[in-house]
């Protein structure tokens, strides 16, 4: 078909088209004689509908002059009517052929660093923001309609933009929000919120060049992944271990916390921020790179993960099993306690010389071995039985021998806590212990655990629950979880458990970073996450903010914050908020002066060099501060008597209750 090459613009100026400089499905692009800054799009005969003409006219009317947005500036008419439009000339190659393919990225922009990617995002978002301010939704944001050069970028294919009631009739799966996947793009108007999804996807695919946010190990097709919100990158304690293999998760680790949080919110929680919010965060990121806070390389060198497949959720389930094992038949009726915690195996008994008198630390024989039991749980909370046998089992054996042979214990009570409660293969664990060491084990429910922990403290001050005046708040910071319970003289009236124990927090830190992540950043980000989670948790549980008579604290973080050694000295110490804050600071200094990157810390052997204790304090104490603030308390009494003393006390009390006239237990 011959097209006469004489055309007119909307002011009836004559336009002469020169050579064809591009072509697409809908039409071709021509240069214009005498005008270097503009080009014309001439539609193919059947491709220009009257709707499209109206839409182009609307876009022209808006007279939007924003550099890089190649929006129609005039219609293009010939003797038959409107046949196309005139727009600013674009330059460069589309993102899909450059930034999104590593070898092409390196070929076209060899000098680029991460800063260039961030500034590309910022520049693109500014254009989107401008369009939104003029009530235009792009609709079909994708990698092929944004062209990039070394320093500029251009939005093309603007005639499909959504304006007034004219929908954007096209789209691509990657950039389509879950709720409109599979819908006919022609049939509805997109919302700003849906555009924000596309915007976040684009930012993701620029910062992790070319990688779609929902690609994951074991993934099905992209549309399904998006609909199911299968976002696989780790954030805080939401860790799937399904992020695509390769450099991608390492790039992710290096992103600022706020950026990761925003992606997580968009792709997992459907919370999609508008351009302004992105701009603030990306500009901060840009400065951070300039200041050396964040890596400037596009593809980080690091490929060494910290660990794989560990649990970040130790909680759940009721009590399970029985605690009593008869070991001997002496007339002493002596009892012993073995506590199997998330971190250790511990044994407690009371000296033969002492009866049921006043509590004295020195009357007790204590023995403990750190076993890091919780680390044997994988991300499905299944206990690795080999790990258990080798690291925990033989320590249990040692304790049982102590109780039987040296301690001459008649009744052994063995109780287990969070890690055991969480394990999906409890039966395997309990039968291994039974078969190999001949003892019964009871897995305590959280409530039983809280009760026993408070009883331990009360026992030490010669009281029982029905002696209480007012409300007692018990904060138990364990390896698996943080338990918060409120008691009065009638017992527990509220207890709740937060899956932020010290082992869990270490796993969060390790799962969100790699060996080359700076420790400073790792600590900062982890702290942000756990403080945030604690705040949200306390609000969501709506724990009663009632007056608290006394707040009692248990756990490594709390006892060590006293700066004193040994449970005996720590017991009864009153920790004030200011002291806790100072302790956080000094712990932080000790950690960051000794270690530069996460890989410097030998987590496996952390217990030997007290790193475990330092980390417990560094992360446990900020949580404690949040809890104290919620209840408006400014001090906490340290209890050096853990759960095991409580079990001991309960057994004694119960026995004495039942056997008033018989020989007492010791």
């Amino acid at each position: 078909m011959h097209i006469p090459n004489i055309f007119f613009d909307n002011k009836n100026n004559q336009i002469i088209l020169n050579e064809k400089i591009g072509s697409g499905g809908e039409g071709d692009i021509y240069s214009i004689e005498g005008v270097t800054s503009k080009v014309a799009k001439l539609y193919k005969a059947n491709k220009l509908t009257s709707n499209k003409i109206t839409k182009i006219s609307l876009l022209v009317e808006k007279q939007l002059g924003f550099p890089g947005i190649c929006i129609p500036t005039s219609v293009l008419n010939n003797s038959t009517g409107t046949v196309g439009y005139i727009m600013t000339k674009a330059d460069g190659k589309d993102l899909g052929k450059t930034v999104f393919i590593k070898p092409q990225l390196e070929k076209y922009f060899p000098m680029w660093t991460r800063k260039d990617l961030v500034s590309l995002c910022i520049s693109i978002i500014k254009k989107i923001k401008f369009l939104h301010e003029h009530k235009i939704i792009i609709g079909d944001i994708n990698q092929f309609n944004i062209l990039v050069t070394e320093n500029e970028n251009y939005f093309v294919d603007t005639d499909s933009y959504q304006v007034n009631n004219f929908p954007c009739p096209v789209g691509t799966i990657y950039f389509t929000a879950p709720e409109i996947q599979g819908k006919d793009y022609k049939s509805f108007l997109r919302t700003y919120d849906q555009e924000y999804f596309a915007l976040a996807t684009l930012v993701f695919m620029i910062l992790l060049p070319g990688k779609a946010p929902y690609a994951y190990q074991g993934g099905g097709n992209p549309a399904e992944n998006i609909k199911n919100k299968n976002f696989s990158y780790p954030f805080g304690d939401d860790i799937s271990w399904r992020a695509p293999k390769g450099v991608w998760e390492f790039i992710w680790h290096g992103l600022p916390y706020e950026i990761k949080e925003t992606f997580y919110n968009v792709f997992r929680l459907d919370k999609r921020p508008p351009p302004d919010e992105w701009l603030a965060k990306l500009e901060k990121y840009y400065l951070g790179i300039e200041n050396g806070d964040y890596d400037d390389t596009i593809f980080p060198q690091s490929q060494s993960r910290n660990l794989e497949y560990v649990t970040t959720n130790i909680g759940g389930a009721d009590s399970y099993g029985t605690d009593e094992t008869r070991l001997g038949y002496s007339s002493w009726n002596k009892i012993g306690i073995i506590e199997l915690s998330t971190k250790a195996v511990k044994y407690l008994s009371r000296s033969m010389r002492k009866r049921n008198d006043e509590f004295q630390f020195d009357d007790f024989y204590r023995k403990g071995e750190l076993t890091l039991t919780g680390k044997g749980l994988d991300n499905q909370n299944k206990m690795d039985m080999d790990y258990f046998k080798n690291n925990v089992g033989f320590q249990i054996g040692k304790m049982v021998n102590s109780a039987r042979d040296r301690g001459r214990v008649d009744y052994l009570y063995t109780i287990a806590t969070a890690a055991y409660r969480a394990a999906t293969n409890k039966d395997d664990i309990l039968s291994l212990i039974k078969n190999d060491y001949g003892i019964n084990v009871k897995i305590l429910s959280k409530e039983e655990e809280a009760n026993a922990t408070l009883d331990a403290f009360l026992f030490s001050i010669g009281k029982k629950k029905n002696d209480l005046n007012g409300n007692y708040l018990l904060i138990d910071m364990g390896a698996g979880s943080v338990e918060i319970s409120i008691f009065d003289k009638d017992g527990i009236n509220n207890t709740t458990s937060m899956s932020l124990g010290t082992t869990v927090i270490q796993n969060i830190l390790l799962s969100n970073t790699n060996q080359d992540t700076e420790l400073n950043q790792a600590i900062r980000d982890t702290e942000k996450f756990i403080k945030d989670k604690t705040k949200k948790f306390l609000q969501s549980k709506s724990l009663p903010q009632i007056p608290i008579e006394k707040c009692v604290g248990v756990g490594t973080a709390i006892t060590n914050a006293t700066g004193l050694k040994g449970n005996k000295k720590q017991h009864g110490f009153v920790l004030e908020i200011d002291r806790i804050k100072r302790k956080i600071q000094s712990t932080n200094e000790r950690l960051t002066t000794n270690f530069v990157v996460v890989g410097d810390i030998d987590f496996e052997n952390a217990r030997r060099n007290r790193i475990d204790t330092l980390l417990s304090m560094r992360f446990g104490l900020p949580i404690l501060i949040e809890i104290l603030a919620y209840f408006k308390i400014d001090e906490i009494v340290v209890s050096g008597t853990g759960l095991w003393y409580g079990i001991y006390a309960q057994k004694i009390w119960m026995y004495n209750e039942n056997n008033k006239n018989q020989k007492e237990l010791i």
Partner: protein
Amino acid sequence: MTDLKIREQDLVDNPTPRVPICLVLDSSYSMSGEPIDELNSGVELFFESVKNDEVAQWSAEICVVTFGGFAKKLLDFEGIQNQSIPTLSADGNTPMDDGVNMALDLLETRKREYSDRGVDYYQPWMVLMTDGEPTQDIASSVYRTVQMIDSKKLTIFPIAIGDGAHLHTLEQYSPSRKPLRLKGLNFSEFFEWLSQSISRVSQSTPGEKVELDVDGIKDWAVL
């Protein structure tokens, strides 16, 4: 680095969604002479034009299986940068069933590799070309192929070469898309069209409908 390592490393480094393409080609004795020469230059042209496409070269992964005497894997799926163009030679009878089954096995393996590493992929394509009749029962490969097509897990392009090609056989593999007969020995035109189609696919998103260049088909097919 072993071949296996390269195959894996490429999946890990290159985020581009993949278009797996199986060429299942008849290399039986009857293809000797001009047909196999033309087919060879067609295949060569195909590789070259995919390599020259800025997106498709990172996206397309080609495997070549021939059936002539026995089924043979000439080329397994891999990034095209690492592949060398195979040369076909004609010999033996026409074990089409084995050929198609082998291609489907390779495809399954590769799909699992994509999935294991978190690489998105498009619905795979299979080009099945023959100039004669299969010399074995094709029931098992027909069953597998049709099942995949029905569940939208495969697109097939059955092509008959010359008058001796048995259209009915090809029809069994392709319940909806009619087999086409190659115009003379226009292999080059066909492969040019194929590479352009792949180029289009590679610029879409996996799962999207892509319109093929229907007009272009007349350059190589008897319509």
